[in-house]
């Protein structure tokens, strides 16, 4: 690799870093504004122009808050849990393709790394988040955190299977694990059309994996106060929050990539790169809005309903769907 290749790579990494640092601020604010409108009340409207600086102020406040370590907590694990939560949430962005290869003096792919095991890398980074949850709940020495972590772990690992089944159906059609190649394979037909069932499985699992309503049992406010991160404060707590919102954006981006044709859309000649990124962002943000809409409109599941829904409905459907997809492929080819 020569100097320019390194420079381009460092620029891309910095761009992802800025996205990761700013996206939660914007998303939290957008969620609060949208929730406010949906519930016929004002959202945040004091700090900045009609509240647009609210989360920046919140972030500043969290940065200078005292962060406590409860008595009897496991210090090392308590220190490390937020880090292991944030790190994979950011590292997973390496494989997301934001747009096609563009020509700016040399060809630049609008992704950090086109791994030939991209899908597995995404799933692996997703599973690492479960470690953060377990470590946080175990280290806190609080009963609420303990129960929250147990629930969260069971939920995360159960829905990981559903996530995997949804992805498998796409892999069956595309014949590749690289996300860039998967997008290329959807040039003619988006995978949501032949794999609508897989899309639904992936969507449900994505909502459950990010601990969002209606699957937000790990942090059910009315019974577990905040679940596994109840003892965390200050910057550490901010890390859990950042990871949650970064994961929402990541899940939306991956759904877009796997099922909605990624950056494909009508392009303006001469500005293909720009319009492609526009389509990608538009589709991604649509799913982010869907996440917010779920939270505003759906009541929380009961825990036994959650587990039964996963093991007795989604997983059998996923397996049958996989076999059916394989059968259809043979019939078509």
């Amino acid at each position, binding site marked *: 690799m020569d100097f320019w290749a390194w420079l381009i790579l460092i620029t891309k990494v910095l761009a992802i870093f800025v996205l990761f640092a700013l996206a939660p601020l914007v998303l939290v604010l957008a969620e609060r504004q949208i929730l406010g409108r949906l519930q016929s009340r004002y959202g945040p409207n004091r700090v900045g122009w009609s509240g647009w600086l609210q989360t920046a102020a919140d972030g500043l406040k969290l940065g200078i808050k005292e962060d406590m*370590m409860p008595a009897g907590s496991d210090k090392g694990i308590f220190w490390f849990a937020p880090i292991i939560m944030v790190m994979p949430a950011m590292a997973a962005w390496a494989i997301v393709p934001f747009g096609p290869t563009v020509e700016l003096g040399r060809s630049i792919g609008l992704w950090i790394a086109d791994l030939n095991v991209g899908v597995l890398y995404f799933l692996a980074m997703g599973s690492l988040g479960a470690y953060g949850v377990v470590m946080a709940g175990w280290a806190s*020495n*609080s009963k609420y955190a*303990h129960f929250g972590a147990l629930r969260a772990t069971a939920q995360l*690992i159960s829905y990981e299977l559903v996530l995997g089944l949804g992805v498998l159906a796409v892999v069956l059609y595309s014949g590749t694990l690289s996300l860039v190649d998967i997008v290329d394979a959807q040039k003619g037909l988006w995978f949501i059309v032949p794999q609508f069932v897989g899309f639904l499985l992936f969507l449900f699992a994505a909502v459950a994996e990010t601990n969002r309503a209606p699957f937000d049992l790990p942090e059910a406010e009315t019974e577990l106060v905040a679940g596994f991160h109840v003892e965390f404060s200050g910057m550490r707590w901010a890390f859990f929050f950042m990871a949650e919102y970064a994961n929402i954006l990541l899940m939306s981006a991956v759904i877009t990539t796997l099922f909605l044709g990624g950056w494909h859309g009508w392009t303006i000649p001469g500005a293909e790169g720009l319009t492609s990124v526009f389509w990608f962002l538009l589709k991604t943000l649509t799913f982010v809005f869907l996440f917010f809409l779920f939270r505003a409109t759906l009541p929380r599941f009961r825990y036994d309903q959650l587990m039964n829904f996963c093991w007795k409905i989604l997983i059998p459907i996923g397996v049958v769907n996989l*076999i059916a997809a394989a059968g259809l492929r043979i019939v078509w080819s």
Partner: protein
Amino acid sequence: MPSWIAVVILMAVAFLFAVGSLIGTMALKPRRKFDAKVEAYESGMVPLHDSRGRYNVRFYLVAVTFLIFDVELLFFYPWALYFNMISDQVSLFASGCVFLAILAVAFVYEWRKGALDWNQ
């Protein structure tokens, strides 16, 4: 392997960001600790004992079931990947079905035994 270098760089940046901002806020944050403040939260009660006690065995059952199914799912990645590469798709399909049938027996057994029922 330039693509892996990129991933490692991103991970390093993520790690440095996390550790750096934790250390950075250490300089800013106040330190005013007293016994009642560092107590674990328990709705205002004084915690009686360590919270890491026994818990429901169902969580363990879920973990074991997950292990079995996750390994099974991993076997399916090469299977799904090779569907586009080989010509004899029918035998590949058949072998996948046999594998799934064996798994389905275990799944049905588990279901009948009530391992998947949460409220019993």
